[in-house]
């Protein structure tokens, strides 16, 4: 596909997404808009792991650690300041700092991929248990009671920047959440198109070669991990804003596993896929929750099995391959044929291709 055509197509897609975001509250009932807001917040979380796993090659089993820290940082700050503006900032900065410390030990200590998974998983469990055991008056940060297992109720939701008296309506929250999703998506697309992003992908492809060319894989992976943590933290703030409530279950292992399922279903190595996977799975889970016939975990497990066995690449890469096969070049030149062949024979996740 010619580069210019692709850029135009992408610009049109972004424009359509913006129109859709703007139009949704007008045409859809409030309950559904609220549900979509939740999906959008979760999709930001999906993007954070999609980026570090799909492009940085870092499989974190504990992305909810940053999600939860972001949520709690937002809640504590919002209660103390009674203004969401600094709280949102803190929800990004606190998980990023935590990711920096954790990443420093993990990557500069040259811990292997398997142990990275184990450590991130364990950190999530530790955070869950710590926050879980904070019930009682003595556990508070400033004015904010941590509340232990019961969590923190009635957290102030988003307000206009620096104007706590103007609390956002659910529709405005939708604009903010969906807008944040689009912004994070575009930011990551831009980053991956820039030299820095190409280096991140190169480290995923071959760490040894990257270091033999003079790149420091430890630093690059650490920075990737920090950015992933910051995005997950933002997702945490968006999530708390949606429910005005945060509890230790935000650190739960089942959610950590669910993110991995979103990405597997949507397509590892893409940014669009995990968003699609997230919304699709969350929609299914939400609908299963309203009936008693099937257990939602059973269905999730079945969906994962089906995808791993039948669509191992995930939805978006499979759809892209089909599209490339269905739409042949208008005048099949040798060059064009070559390109299609190589794109079919390409490894499961060609870098940055979407």
């Amino acid at each position, binding site marked *: 596909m010619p580069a210019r055509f692709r850029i135009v197509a992408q610009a049109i897609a972004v424009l359509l997404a913006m129109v859709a975001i703007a139009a949704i509250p007008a045409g859809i009932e409030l309950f559904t808009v609220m549900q979509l807001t939740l999906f959008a917040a979760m999709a930001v979380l999906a993007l954070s792991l999609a980026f570090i796993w799909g492009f940085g090659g870092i499989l974190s089993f504990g992305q909810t650690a940053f999600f939860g820290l972001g949520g709690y940082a937002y809640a504590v700050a919002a209660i103390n300041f009674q203004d969401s503006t600094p709280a949102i900032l803190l929800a990004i900065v606190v998980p990023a700092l935590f990711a920096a410390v954790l990443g420093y030990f993990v990557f500069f200590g040259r811990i292997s991929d398997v142990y990275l998974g184990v450590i991130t998983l364990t950190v999530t469990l530790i955070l869950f248990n710590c926050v879980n055991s904070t019930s009682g008056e003595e556990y508070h940060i400033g004015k904010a009671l941590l509340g232990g297992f019961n969590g923190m109720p009635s957290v102030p939701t988003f307000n206009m920047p620096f104007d706590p008296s103007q609390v956002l309506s659910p529709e405005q929250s939708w604009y903010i959440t969906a807008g944040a999703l689009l912004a994070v998506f575009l930011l990551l697309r831009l980053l991956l198109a820039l*030299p820095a992003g*190409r*280096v991140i*992908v*190169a480290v*995923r*492809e*071959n760490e*040894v*070669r*990257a*270091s*033999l*060319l*003079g*790149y*420091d*894989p430890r630093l690059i992976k650490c920075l990737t991990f920090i950015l992933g943590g910051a995005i997950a933290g933002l997702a945490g703030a968006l999530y708390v804003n949606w429910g005005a409530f945060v509890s230790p279950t935000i650190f739960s292992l089942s959610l950590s596993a669910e993110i991995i399922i979103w990405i597997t279903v949507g397509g590892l190595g893409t940014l669009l896929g995990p968003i699609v996977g997230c919304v699709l799975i969350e929609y299914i889970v939400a609908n299963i929750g309203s009936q008693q016939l099937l257990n939602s975990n059973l269905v999730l497990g079945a969906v994962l099995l089906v995808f791993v066995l039948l669509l191992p690449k995930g939805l978006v890469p499979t759809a892209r391959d089909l599209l490339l096969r269905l739409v042949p070049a208008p005048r099949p030149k040798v060059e064009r044929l*070559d*390109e299609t062949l*190589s*794109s079919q*024979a*390409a*490894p499961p*996740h*060609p*870098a940055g291709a979407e």
Partner: protein
Amino acid sequence: MAELVPLLKAEHLTMRFGGVVANDDITFTLDEMELRCLIGPNGAGKSTFFKTLTGQLVPTSGAIAFRGLPIAGKESHQIARMGIGIKTQVPNVFNGLSVRENIWLAVRRRATPRQQGPAVNAVLEMIRLTDHADRIVATLAHGQRQWVEIGMVLAAEPELILLDEPAAGMTDEETFHTAAIIREINQTRAIIVVEHDMEFIKQIAKKVTVFHQGRVLVEDTVSKVLADQRVRDVYLGKKVAA
């Protein structure tokens, strides 16, 4: 005025893996612009030696100096930035990226954005992959992937180039082209080549170092090394006799 500092100097270099001594008290000197061939049977310690030179392994004892600066124990990327480039024995390329992007990642470290495009094209031309520039490296033939890696090493323009079996898996014609490239880049920089293919070594070699059981067995011109009885015994026996 002090004596000229050699480009690379390894002194009493020893690398132990548990009870196995892969490199045993190796002392090795390479001058500026020199082309050196490193030969020896499998397990002689050639690749281990390369790995200690590039920071992939930290030597058990001994010192390595690059232009007088100690490099033993430094990280791979620090050594790479000082100007040592390596093509490893098992091809280390970015399989999921295009040929152009592979080369660009190497060029990028030394060139300004404006210079990068022409520099990448020049390297693609040299390794004769211009027509395949946009293909994903994983889809290339083994010989071509070797070229991509050699191209990356050249693109970074290191002061010292280490090539571990550059002609492995190449056709005779490709091997000949490799030899031509090696002679060409040797006009401006030093190279150490590990190779098993004696025809290839005869095409390029000036001075040859023979490794055997982790030690330097002999170091001399190519004709003298090939005539050396000990070298024939440990390694070349069959090939030279044939």
